[in-house]
């Protein structure tokens, strides 16, 4: 048995360990290995360690502490960290973390394009030829992308992934117990790529196609690997002071983003030459390009503090001022810019300010009051110009950029009242106002008088549809401790958001085409439309016996967009959770939970174009999203004379998302031959079912040595129609297939590790 002095030192000194082992994954799966680094079928090295020391441990008289730790060293999900401190004086820390993100369907992406993943130049293989965009004339063959066998031979698989290498450095210094300074620096290097769509100039649409009810502009689509070759540096610096009655912090936050590419270029395999509006795109395959995210800097000064006016009345407040700058030279794609460039870079400048103030008071134990306010402003000082360019359809366009500014003002009043020692009531009223605007006349009035062409839209179009939102919100929560073993809570929130709609809204950024550029009258984007919202919640915890406990909670929300003749009409969500834990004995516990979630959204929209058109035909679309999650855990220790411990972790989740569309047309139905089955009806559910089991056994050989072994089973059944479209032979006529598939997998992982522990 353990000596008692030993018992003290086991408690007061750190237990260090080094763990090495091996794990084997039996399948290749990018989805299973999405973030854990186990994406390939092979044996992995397992390595973890944690070593701590210093003279402060074990009730020591010193103040030094240090630690070094490493986790998952054998996979691309590894991390390392070290800290050393002289507590009360200074501390240093350094860390490194790697994350290899396998793009969900990465191991099934195929492309004929040449160029490395992570690179920014893609070319067509020589001899690939031109992809036929001829539209089939018989409905039976609509939408089949037939690459010739020669072209199919150029398709090759690429393992798409993106990496984040995150290095961190921290430093802290205490001048004295009141003053200290904290510094934190994070350096993230990203590499690799993510998939992105691309459209290229190819406006070769056909009548048969249009008649079938589609109106794509006929652009040629490829899915390419968009490089994520970025560096981000985030720096936090704070000087803190805390005294008996007050505290404050003066801080700086800086974030610097650098993209090592300015654009990514790719060929258009649907044509060899392209003549559009007099401009020729040169080359065997005309080259188009996507811009990549521009470098930007964000610098922010922060001030925050608090003061106890009396022992029961406290005031806290803060202010911050930030500048977000972006001024990268534009990618100058002459052939896309018949009018040339008005300026060579954006000179983008956004000023972000924030204020807050809050007063809390607790004069009696039974009543706590608080009153506070926040003000946030994003002031976009960027200038506007008119840009002339050719759009994807090679049509000449001119558009004005509309740098958006907005501010949010919030006020809140809250009271907590203790009805009795076991009952609490919380009530609050909150007010919020959002204002949106553009800072320059060009952005606001660029379109001039469009009334001539669009009756109903008038001259002074502003840059936003909803220049003002106001929200009034009421909250009541009630808590009851019914007995030592039973407590209960319930709450209700009502929020009413009203929108001031600019009826003349016409987004000057959109095209100058009098039939295309408008939302229908009465159509409201849901995020700023008027809305009423009800939220109910309730929960209970019950300790049935010393060993058995239950908890049950649920909530529901009801959103109504009463003032939106068109657009999202209502939303609804509900959830229910049940948990239970049972301590079978001091050595065995089991717990289980079930969660159930449901969400719906109803949309009413219309075909037809703008104000001039007669009242358009309407259609509805309903979203239903359902999720069920079940979990079960069991733990048994004290087997084989206390040497063996067993753990089981099981979970199952099933998520289903469905859409259904109905036409309110008088003259058309889903079954009419010309547009059978596509314009309405239900889509197949997007369904994912994930089952997981993890079984672990720990066998303690002696105080220094432990062996852990385990087995992980995971099965994902994913059924997502998304992938149908990209299959060879099933894509739209001008889309290059990628053969991506739903990321289902069945994975078995076995592992064994030896842990050496020492003090």
């Amino acid at each position, binding site marked *: *048995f353990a*000596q*008692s*002095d030993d*018992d003290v030192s086991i408690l007061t000194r750190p237990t260090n360990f080094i763990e090495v082992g091996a794990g084997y994954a039996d399948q290749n799966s990018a989805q299973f290995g999405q973030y854990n680094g186990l994406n390939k079928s092979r044996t992995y090295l397992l390595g973890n360690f944690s070593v701590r020391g210093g003279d402060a441990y074990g009730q020591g008289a010193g103040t030094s502490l240090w630690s070094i730790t490493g986790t998952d060293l054998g996979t691309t999900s590894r991390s390392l960290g070290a800290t050393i401190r002289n507590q009360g004086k200074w501390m240093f820390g350094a860390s490194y973390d790697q994350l290899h993100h396998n793009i969900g369907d990465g191991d099934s992406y195929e492309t004929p394009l040449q160029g490395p993943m992570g690179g920014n130049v893609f070319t067509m293989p020589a001899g690939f030829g031109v992809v036929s965009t001829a539209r089939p004339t018989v409905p039976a063959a609509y939408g089949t992308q037939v690459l010739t066998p020669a072209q199919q031979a150029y398709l090759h698989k690429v393992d798409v992934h993106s990496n984040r290498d995150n290095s961190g450095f921290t430093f802290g210094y205490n001048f004295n117990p009141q003053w200290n300074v904290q510094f934190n620096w994070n350096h993230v290097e990203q590499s690799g790529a993510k998939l992105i769509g691309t459209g290229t100039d190819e406006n070769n649409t056909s009548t048969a196609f249009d008649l079938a009810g589609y109106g794509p502009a006929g652009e040629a689509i490829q899915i390419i690997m968009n490089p994520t070759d970025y560096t981000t540096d985030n720096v936090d610096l704070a000087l803190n002071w805390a005294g008996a009655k007050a505290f404050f912090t003066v801080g700086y936050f800086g974030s610097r983003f650098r993209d090592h590419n300015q654009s990514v270029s790719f060929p258009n395999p649907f044509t060899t030459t392209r003549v559009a509006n007099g401009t020729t795109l040169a080359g065997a395959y005309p080259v188009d390009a996507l811009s990549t995210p521009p470098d930007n800097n964000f610098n922010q000064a922060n001030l925050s503090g608090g003061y106890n006016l009396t022992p029961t009345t406290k005031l806290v407040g803060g202010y911050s001022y930030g500048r977000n700058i972006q001024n990268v030279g534009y990618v100058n794609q002459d052939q896309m810019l018949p009018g040339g460039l008005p300026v060579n870079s954006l000179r983008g400048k956004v000023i972000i300010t924030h204020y807050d103030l809050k007063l809390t008071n607790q004069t009696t134990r039974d009543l706590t009051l608080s009153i506070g306010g926040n003000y946030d402003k994003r002031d976009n000082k960027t200038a506007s110009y008119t840009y002339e360019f050719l759009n994807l359809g090679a049509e000449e366009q001119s558009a004005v950029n509309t740098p958006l500014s907005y501010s949010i003002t919030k006020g809140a009043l809250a009271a907590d009242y203790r009805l009795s020692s076991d009952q609490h009531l919380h009530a609050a009223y909150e007010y919020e106002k959002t204002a949106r605007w553009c800072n320059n006349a060009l952005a606001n009035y660029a379109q001039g008088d469009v009334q001539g062409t669009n009756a109903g839209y008038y001259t002074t179009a502003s840059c936003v549809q909803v220049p003002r939102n106001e929200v009034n919100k009421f909250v009541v929560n009630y808590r009851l401790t019914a007995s030592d073993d039973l407590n209960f809570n319930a709450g209700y929130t009502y929020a009413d958001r009203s929108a001031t709609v600019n009826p003349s809204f016409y987004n000057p950024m959109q095209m100058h085409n009098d039939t295309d550029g408008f939302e229908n009258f009465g159509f409201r984007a849901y995020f700023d439309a008027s809305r009423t919202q009800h939220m109910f919640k309730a929960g209970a915890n019950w300790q049935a016996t010393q060993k058995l406990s239950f908890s049950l909670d649920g909530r529901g929300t009801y959103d109504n967009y009463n003032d939106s003749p068109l657009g999202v009409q209502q939303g609804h969500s509900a959830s229910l959770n049940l948990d239970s834990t049972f301590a079978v004995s*001091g050595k065995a516990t089991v717990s289980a939970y079930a969660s159930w979630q449901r969400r719906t959204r109803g949309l009413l929209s219309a075909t037809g174009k703008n104000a001039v058109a007669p009242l358009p035909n309407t259609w509805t679309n309903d979203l239903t999203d359902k999720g069920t999650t079940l979990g079960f855990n069991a733990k048994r220790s*004290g087997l084989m004379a*206390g040497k063996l411990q067993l753990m089981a972790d099981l979970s199952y989740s099933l998520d289903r998302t469905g859409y259904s569309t109905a036409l309110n047309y008088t003259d058309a139905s889903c079954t009419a031959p010309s547009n059978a089955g596509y314009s309405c009806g239900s889509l197949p559910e997007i369904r994912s079912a994930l089952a997981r089991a993890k079984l672990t056994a720990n066998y303690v050989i002696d105080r220094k040595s432990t062996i852990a072994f385990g087995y992980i089973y995971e099965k994902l059944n994913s059924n997502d129609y998304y992938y149908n479209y990209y299959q060879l032979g099933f894509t739209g006529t001008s889309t290059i297939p990628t053969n991506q598939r739903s990321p289902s997998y069945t994975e078995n992982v076995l592992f064994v590790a030896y842990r050496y522990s020492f003090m």
Partner: protein
Amino acid sequence: AHAADMDAAKTLARANNCFKCHAVTRDKDGPGWKKVADKYRGKPDAEAKLMHHLTSGEMVKLADGSQVHHAIIKTDPANNTAQIKNLVDWILSL
């Protein structure tokens, strides 16, 4: 004597707050149990004596000199002598 179940003994002692006054090696308000074991080593009536001590509430003197009744041990289920015996055996085995 059979080998005592240390875990069960400690659990019972914890539940009765014995450790508030006793440690294994160290003296607290009460004597360290190793010391108790030494005192009774080789004495055949040791077990009976301690069983009595734990169930009768004899007067004991604390470090500050005050006299109190010694704690009477409680078991679950009540008066389970086997549990007490196990604790006593463990103390004596120290």
